Every structure is written in C-alpha cells, then in structure tokens.
C-alpha cells in the first residue's frame, strides 16, 4: 500500500469524504468571511481607532484577541528635552548601543547639554533606557509607524524625539520605577588627586570640590600633591548615574553604603 506509514488517513473511511469534507470546510469559511474577512485593512483601519473598534463591536479599552494597542506597548521613544539632565544613563543601559548623546542647544559652554539620539535601525525596543532615566524624560510610546525609505531617517535626533513627546499621542508611556540605588558615591581619600573631573562631568552638579588641609604624602609618592581639594557628593541630588566613577582617572570613587 502506497500510503503506509502515514497515519493521516483512516483506511476504513470513504475516500469521497477526503474530497467533500475539506470542500465543506472551505465553503463554511467562505460564507463566514463573505461579508467581512478577519483581516484588518491596516492603513485604512487601525486597531487603536475607536471608530474601527465600534464597527467591529468592541468597546474601547477591552482587548479583543487582536486588541487595541496595549498600554505597555514599547514603540518609538518620546523625549522631553527640557527635563533631560544629560546623565547618559540611557546610553549606558542600552544593550544595542543605539543611543548616542548628542549636543543640543540650551546648555552653557562649560556644561553642554547632551540628549539621546536613537538609531531605530539598531534599537530592540527593550525599554531599559526609559527604565534607567532618572528624570522620566525618556519614555516609550505606543507609536509604531517607523517605516521609511532611507536608513538615515531611522536615526531619530533629540529634536525628533521631542516632537513625538509634543504630539501627545493617545498612548500611555510606561516606565518601571526602579528602586533607587541605596548605595552612595564614596571616596577613597588617599588616592584622590583633586582633578575636578567628577565635579565637571556630574549631570546634576551635585559634586562640589571642597578645600582640604594639606594631606600627608602617600607612600612612595615622588611629587607632592598640588591641589588640596576633594569631592563631596550631595547625596539627595545624586541620581546614581555613575558618571563620576567612570571619569575618575585614579579610580578613587566607588559605590558603597553611606556611613
């Protein structure tokens, strides 16, 4: 028998059924979708459109199997440039390295204001950046229409992300409020050379360099220390971005429990 090994057909079944049964199924499907197939005519109908939802008979907010845009949908980012503190945490947290901090007007020459520029060609929409943002100025929105004929247009400048924010699209930005890092920035005083890098780069400017008395020379020190200053972190203003730790040339700043 040619069909041996195939369990799909029952030998005692009338072969006529092999023809009539699928045809009946197809006819049933045909009559069901004759008036309105299940497909959503996307550019003309949108799931989130209330008119469309009333047409297919679903109250807004109630998910139908192919429901509305869910509240926790992660689409294009929205950026509020005004509240951005240029802390770089979004770029730090990005697993795809698609965020680059670019200068935007509004900062002073000593502290240029830098805001995220996102390359959606690389972005995986994980949302870590908006979770990491201490000020809540970078959020994911439910906007999903990104298609463009050019790759260069996939890179959204801060201004473009600001426009998404200004559109006030009918979408609910979600953001997981991460528990604030209990640790503080601590200093290992003997290593510090008082270079001011941490205070210069702190986005919230919560680090001030305070004068200290002339310290004792470190063991094996050839030239005596010339700058008698040490950073002091204002713990309530700190957003725990870690910029100071990463810029410290002597690795004398570290995380630790405050005393």
């Amino acid at each position, binding site marked *: 028998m040619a069909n041996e090994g195939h369990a799909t057909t029952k030998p005692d079944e009338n072969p006529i059924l092999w023809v009539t049964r699928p*045809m009946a199924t197809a006819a049933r*499907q*045909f009559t069901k*979708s004759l008036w309105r*197939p299940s*497909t959503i005519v996307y550019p003309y109908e949108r799931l989130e459109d209330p008119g469309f939802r009333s047409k297919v008979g679903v109250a807004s907010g109630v998910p139908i199997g192919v429901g509305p845009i869910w509240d926790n949908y992660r689409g294009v980012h929205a950026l509020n440039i005004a509240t951005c503190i240029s802390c770089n945490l979004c770029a730090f947290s990005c697993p795809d390295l698609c965020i680059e901090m670019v200068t935007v007007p509004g900062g002073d020459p000593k502290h240029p204001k830098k805001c995220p520029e996102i390359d959606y060609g690389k972005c995986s929409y994980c949302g870590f950046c908006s979770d990491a943002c201490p000020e809540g100025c970078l959020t994911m929105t439910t906007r999903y229409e990104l298609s463009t004929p050019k790759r260069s247009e996939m890179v959204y400048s801060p201004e473009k992300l600001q426009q998404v924010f200004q559109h006030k699209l009918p979408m609910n930005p979600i953001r997981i409020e991460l528990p604030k890092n209990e640790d503080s920035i601590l200093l290992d005083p003997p290593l510090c050379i008082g270079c001011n890098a941490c205070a210069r780069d702190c986005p919230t400017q919560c680090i001030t360099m305070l004068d200290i008395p002339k310290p004792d020379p470190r063991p094996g020190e050839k030239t005596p220390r010339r700058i008698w200053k040490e950073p002091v972190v204002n713990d309530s203003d700190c957003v725990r971005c870690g910029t100071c730790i990463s810029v410290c040339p002597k690795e004398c700043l570290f995380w630790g429990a405050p005393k």
Partner: protein
Amino acid sequence: MATLTLYSVAYDIARGLLGVLGSVLPAGARAVVLSGDAVTGLAVLVFAAVLLAASMLNTILLIWWERKLLGRFMDRRGAMHVGYAGLLQNFADGLKLFRKHTFPPREADGLGFYFGPTAYMVTSLAIFGILPISSGWNSGALPLSLLLALTIFSFAPLFIFVSAWSSNNKYSLMGGLRSAAQMIAYEVPLLLAVVAVVVLAGSFDLTTIVYEQRNYWFWGPLFLALIVFVAAMLAEMERIPFDLPEAEAELVEGWNTEYGGMLFAFFMLADYLRALVGSILVVLLFLGGWTLPSWVPAGLSSFPLAGILWFMVKTYAVFGLFVWVRASLPRVRTDQLLRVGWNRMIPLALLSVFLAAAVVTVRCVPVLGCVPSMGA
C-alpha cells in the same frame, strides 16, 4: 431587427474606418478603399482584434476573480489597492512583467526557448476563434468546432515540453516530463467525457450542442461525465490539486523555472486562458451555453446581449468552482494522479458514454424531457 452578431459589428467598424479613410483620399483611391473586398478584409482583422482584446481582458479579469475568491476562502481580502477593489492590480503586474528583461540561460536552445511560450500562448488564444459566445457571436458555423478546440487544447504538452527541454535545466525538464505525462493521462478521460456529450447531442458543432440543450441541460443525464470532465480539465489546466508539474510550494515553478519577464507572463496568461477555455467548455457542453431554462421569466433573457451576459455569469461561476477546489484540496502525488487518471476516470467516462447511448436509445429522460433533435 437584424440580430447583432460579432461579424456584423466587426463589418460595421471596418466600413466606418474605411469610410473615414476614403473621405480624405482622391477619388481613384477611394473606390479601391471602399470596395467590398477591402471592407471584408479589414472586417476580418477587426474581428480578430476584438476577439484578442476580449480574451485577454477576460483572462485578466479571471485572475482578479480568482484572487478575490481565494482571499475570501482564506479569510482575507485579496487584491484591493490598485483600482476599485483591486481591479487594476493585474494590469499593473502585467505592465511590470512587460518592462522586464528576459534572460535565457547559458547554452539554452534559443529557438525552443522563445518558441515554446509563444506557441503555448498563440495556441491558447487560437481556441477563442472557435468558441461561440452567444447565438451569432462566433466565427461562423464550423461543423467540427468542438473537435478543433480540443485538438488545439491538446497541443499544450508539446510546447511545454519544448520549452522545458530547451531551458537546459534539469528541474525544468523533469517538470516538463511530469506535465506531459499528466496531460496525456487526462486527455483520454476528457475526450471520453466529451464523447458522451457528442453522442447525446449528435453533433461536434458547439453551437448545435448548445441548441440541443434547449429542453434540458446535459449535466442532468450526464452528471458522471460532468464530474469526469471537470476533474480532467483541472488536470489539463494544471490547477490544484493536480498542479504537480508546477508545485509552487515545493518545486521551483517546474517547467517555467528559467522563464522571467514577458515570457513568464506568456505562460501565466496562457494558463489562465486555458482555465477560461476550460470553464467555457464546461458551460457549453453541460450548462446550456448562453441559454436559460424555460421556467426562467422571458424578461431575463430577451434584452440585447443577454446571451453574452448569462454566458459570462456561468463561466465565472464555473471558474469559481475551480477556485473552490483549489482552496480546499491538497496536491496529490504523481502515482495517485496517474492511477486516478487511468484506473478511475476512464471507467467512469466509459460508463457515462454508455449512459448517453442509453438516453439516446430510449430518447427521453423521465423527469427532464426528450432529446430535441431525435424527439418523440
């Protein structure tokens, strides 16, 4: 009122065109242009042009019809963006294919490579010169028009095989072999089913066959032959479930693997032309052609061009049946295909021939009525 026929329309168009041409010519040339021979000659050309345009337009509409129906069978919509309900989508596709370059494979046989699709297309078009569309809308009374149509229809395996062979590609060749085997296997039951119709109608002329169905359509007494004819026609058209030579899901398009651009469009169009011919033949042989049953109100069939309208409705409905089969059934295997063709179809077709002979012998069918030309 003289009946409107295709030839009279073509003749009037030709006379009008030549009249316009003659009015701007000097008197000597005008006499030549307006002579009967010139008008008749141009009328034949116009006749052919009208047939060509009608067949191509219907073919493209048929593709649209299949796409829309298949969409509904699959719970989607089919083409819908270009033109109203996607009517112009296939024209756009054709235009795209028309603009494409055709690359013959290296060491392909150039003559066969170009001759195959062209001949396939031309023979498929030629059948339309034979099929009557309505009373008067045909190319004259051909006593053996059914035989001629089926003869041209059966040329196809040759051209498919030629183009598959000259593609210089083993997949094309295998597809061509399968196609030829399939078409030959189903040629016999197809013709036997037609024999049943011919026995009942007593003629090979398609117009006469339709005329003989004025008491009852032949699908009643010859239901068996109808089933055999439709199944064999599906195999001849290489449509699902008998599309193994092409098998788009698992093979590389079978015998037209190496074809692109307009040559591929030729194959595509010719396939649908043959599907159209198949549907038309089913309508002509079994469903009463352009006539309506006698219990239908006369108003439905007495307005001008009603015959063509009902003919088109029936043709598209029959093609809808083919689409329904395509949406339902999976593809069969080669051995199943050939076994069904030789072992099942031929006995069934022979049985239907005997049935037709029995009907002719007793002259009348209990419920339906009598065979008209032999009528009691």
